[in-house]
């Protein structure tokens, strides 16, 4: 076991998969010599050469289209979208193409691609380098969406995504890249896509979250236990689509109090689906209204640091919401 950053864990997963299987290759803008603008692919071009570490022209629809075609040919492409904020030009290739290839060919073709994208704010990225885009894809059958919070989960889930027979969107939180460190086993391991992880067990309330907010909620939960003796169960979804209904519903039934927390804005966010699932399957177990803790419906997020701070979720905010919910 060694302690690694989220970024290092992701880079390791890429390198190990590329060594394991020569069908795996990465493509995107600046992934070559530059090693990616966040350095995630650093060192790969030296080890695997420019053909398997492909610097593409500046064209996101092309990047995903090339991945789809290369996958049809028999390769296992891992496409990088430089910032999640720039994935929109590729939405047609992702939603109308990648997600539908298996279905529209009646199962005779498939699309085993991974699309990695750094997302999230709190890094002075302003309106176009801070976005969370997972909700824009949440409605699309045929896609899988993964958003790990820890180095351990990131490495195991990225390997699973690369080996998955269907298209996987893999979202990496920019603020977590270097600030989040954790134990990563030296031996090879793969984690299952579709399973949430209870990062902190508790019986007083359920907190369902993902991404960087997992760490905010865990910190708030510890404080809540210390200061108020309230034990929050913190569920890290890890995979957003398909979502782990069982874990969510079981915990909701157990605690009777459900809070959903994400950095993404509230209306139409993934919290909406989670609330709907709980309201469908565990309504009469609830002792309090379902609470969604999320930023207001504005464009994530202003460049000005003070406004950015107002937008970004905080430990205090999570703490207060948990406490109020527990006391409800």
């Amino acid at each position, binding site marked *: 076991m060694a302690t690694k950053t989220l970024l290092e864990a992701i880079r390791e997963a890429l390198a190990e998969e590329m060594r394991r299987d020569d069908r795996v*290759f990465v493509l995107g803008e600046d992934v070559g010599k530059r090693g990616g603008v966040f350095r995630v692919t650093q060192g790969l071009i030296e080890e695997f050469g420019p*053909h*398997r570490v*492909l610097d*593409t*022209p500046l*064209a996101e*629809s*092309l990047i*995903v*289209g*090339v*991945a*789809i*075609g*290369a*996958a*049809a*040919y*028999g*390769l296992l*492409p891992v496409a990088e979208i430089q910032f999640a904020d720039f994935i929109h*030009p590729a939405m*047609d*290739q992702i939603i*109308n*193409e990648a997600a*539908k*290839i*298996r*279905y*529209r*060919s*009646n*199962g*005779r*073709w*498939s699309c085993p691609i991974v699309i990695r994208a750094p997302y999230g704010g709190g890094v002075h990225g302003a309106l176009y380098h801070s976005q969370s885009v997972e909700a824009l894809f949440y409605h699309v*059958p*045929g896609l*899988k969406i993964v958003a790990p919070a820890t180095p351990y989960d990131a490495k195991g889930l990225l390997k699973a995504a690369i080996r998955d*027979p*269907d298209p996987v969107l893999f979202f990496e939180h920019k603020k977590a890249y270097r600030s989040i460190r954790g134990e990563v086993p030296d031996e090879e391991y793969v984690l299952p896509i579709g399973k949430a992880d209870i990062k902190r067990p508790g019986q007083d309330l359920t907190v369902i979250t993902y991404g960087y907010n997992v760490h905010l909620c865990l910190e708030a939960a510890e404080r809540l236990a210390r200061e108020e003796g309230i034990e929050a169960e913190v569920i890290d979804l890890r995979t957003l689509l398909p979502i782990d209904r069982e874990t969510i519903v079981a915990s909701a039934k157990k605690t009777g109090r459900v809070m959903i927390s994400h950095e993404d804005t509230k209306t139409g966010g993934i919290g909406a689906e989670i609330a709907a699932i709980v309201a469908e399957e565990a309504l009469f177990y609830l002792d309090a209204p379902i609470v969604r803790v999320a930023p207001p419906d504005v464009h994530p997020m202003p460049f000005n640091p003070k406004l950015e701070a107002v937008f970004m979720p905080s430990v205090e905010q999570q703490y207060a919401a948990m406490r109020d919910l527990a006391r409800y």
Partner: protein
Amino acid sequence: MENRHAALGLSDQDVVAMYEKMLLTRLLDERAWVLNRLGKVNFLVSAQGHEAAQVGAAWALRPGVDWALPYYRDLGVALTLGSTARDYVLSLFAKAEDPYSGGRQMPSHWSSPPLKMFTGSSPVATQLPQATGVAYGIKLRGDDAVVYVSFGEGSASAGDAHEAMNFAGVHRLPVIFFCQNNRYAISVPQEKQMAVENVADRAAGYGFPGVVVDGMDPLAVYGAMKEAVARARRGEGPTLIEAKVYRYTPHSSDDDDRTYRARDEVEQWRERDGLPRWRDYLMGLGLLTEEADAALRQRLLAEVDAAVAYAEAAPDPEPEDLTRHVYAE
């Protein structure tokens, strides 16, 4: 009548076989319209006027070796690569056995793993970046296959067409961009679609050759394709071939082309129809006789009848099929 095909390496059998594919394409298409007007099939998109271009182009490919990402109008390409009348009619009737989509997609949304024909969608031009992805895989693997990808002149206005051609040029990928320019995108005439005469003129901006050919002449198209394929195999990169054709029918069974083009324009183009011209060529060389042609028609019509009878009787998908193949099973 001088022999123009020998010089291209085509045998007499080849050119007669090409005629058969062109004729089958036309007969199937005509039948599709009848079935639609009878209310038996809900939709079709027509290939009439494109047959010579399609058969001429596909003839230069090695079925099952080279890759194809044909667009919805490419009935002639699908048939030449190995799709059958039955396959097509099954897709018209959207039956469970429809090999392209099991009745999920509209007709003419080709797909066949054994024929290396990648599944296509309706949103135009999306196949171009995908074709360059296949070609990139071929190059990465050092395989000698080439990729055929087709589209209309209207679809050439879409961003995906540009992104794909630029990428193919940068990596000198073994892909042939085959544009079937029939002068209309549904109702939008070429003048409202582009300011230049030829889509092929854009190839220069991507660093590879652009060729304009008479799409009503299968030999002109075959010749250009043959050269493009050879170029691609030599590792010299892509070619953009623009075949000038005309769509004799409305865009689809839902369209009414009288709202946007004059009848006499359509009639004028009828005179250049590649099918009778090819027939005359074969007859002029004594490779086809009235009798042989009549016999061929009979055989092909029987093939079409059999396909229709089979498809009409074939079972629909089961209700449970609705939820299958969203993810790997």
